[in-house]
């Protein structure tokens, strides 16, 4: 009978160990936030991405909707080409949205914030009718506003703020103001 008890304990031990591993994987690590592969890729050019990393968050209104997939240097345009993977369920982002690189907190991680544009849709058209009144014409469900799709590029981008550059600008502005003051003498 003691063998039986030993076997039960060993079974419990192994099950507990596997449960602990499972808990680490599901509850502690980022496995639960891995998105499905059904996202689509969007690219954007930035002059300066300093601090942004692959797997950084892409957010809109503060909600994470994707991740940075790839960052390469485009040697022809001499700027950084960032490829973002947006989750498939967010397929209604207007194609004239803008992308900016922000910092979470004072010293936190960099992330990309998207801001929705007006959407270059032609579904509604303003026109003057015969009586001189402005008329709003709705083209109905046939036309869809143009949205970001696989491979589309975000044109409006704003670079990451680099502290040294800001301070440099500030100092040079300060110095030039000093020069102006001294001139009248």
């Amino acid at each position, binding site marked *: 009978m003691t063998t039986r008890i*030993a076997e039960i*304990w*060993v079974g*419990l*031990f*192994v099950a507990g160990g596997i449960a602990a*591993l499972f808990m*680490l994987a599901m509850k*502690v690590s*980022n496995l639960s936030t891995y998105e499905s592969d059904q996202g689509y890729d969007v690219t954007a050019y930035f002059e300066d991405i300093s601090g942004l990393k692959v797997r950084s968050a892409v957010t809109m209104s503060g909600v994470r909707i994707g991740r940075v997939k790839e960052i390469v240097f485009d040697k022809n345009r001499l700027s950084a080409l960032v490829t973002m993977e947006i989750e498939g369920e967010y397929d209604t982002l207007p194609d004239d949205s803008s992308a900016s690189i922000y910092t979470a907190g004072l010293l936190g991680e960099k992330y990309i914030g998207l801001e929705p544009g007006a959407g270059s849709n032609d579904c509604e058209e303003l026109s003057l009718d015969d009586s001189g009144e402005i008329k709003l014409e709705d083209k109905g469900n046939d036309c869809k506003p143009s949205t970001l799709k696989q491979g589309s590029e975000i044109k409006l981008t704003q670079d990451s703020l680099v502290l040294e550059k800001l301070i440099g600008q500030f100092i040079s502005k300060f110095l030039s103001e000093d020069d102006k003051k001294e001139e009248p003498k």
Partner: protein
Amino acid sequence: MLNQIQLLGHKGLNFFQRLGRGHILIFDILAGLSSLIPRPNLIVQQLYSVGVLSLIIIVVSGFFVGMVMGLQGYNTLVDFGAEESLGVMVALSLVRELGPVVTALLFAGRAGSALTAEIGLMKATEQLSAMEMMAVDPVRRVLGPRFLAGFISMPLLAAMFSAVGVLGGYFVGVGLLGVDDGAYWSQMQASVDLYDDIYNGVIKSLVFGFVVTWIAVFEGYDAIPTSEGVSRATTRTVVHSSLAVLGLDFILTALMFN
């Protein structure tokens, strides 16, 4: 003078002989593991004495280490207004370092010394020779199951240590010190990577389990068959395996997280 040089050479040769014997033994054990397939009962018995009996010390230490991490981390992070990152700190340090390393040290003290003493005493009371007389290979019958049980137990124990430690940090950080519940888990999940952190932690604990059980089994099998010899071998197991774990930890960390 000449005698001392002779002694040095003797010690050096002895060291290399032991090193060689240890490696030959591990190859013998690994080669003999296939003979265990028809006798899973041997492994289950050893899993009980090596793994299950180490459970209490591992779980209790894990909980306290996690609680201390929570307390220390909170006091440091609160100065920067970053106490929400407590979960990240506790989880990363446990999963990457403390889980595998502290578990391996405790395992060497709890299970490794017991393995050495048991095998050493078997040798001292000539049970191993008796087995050989009956054409039973003690390496396959005695060392193999013990080695395999230690190798299996270590990663399971380390995983439990880390999981319980995270709960201990949660208990102190969220329960006693008032860190936000959601921030504790969400920041943790945002920063701990399954492959970079947890997978590498498991590899570390596998390596430590291999080394600690190997040293324990070898020291027991190689012990001088007297009571003093067995006691020396037991001490050597704890000292050598602790040093090996800490040294290997540095190498593995350099390889994994550079």
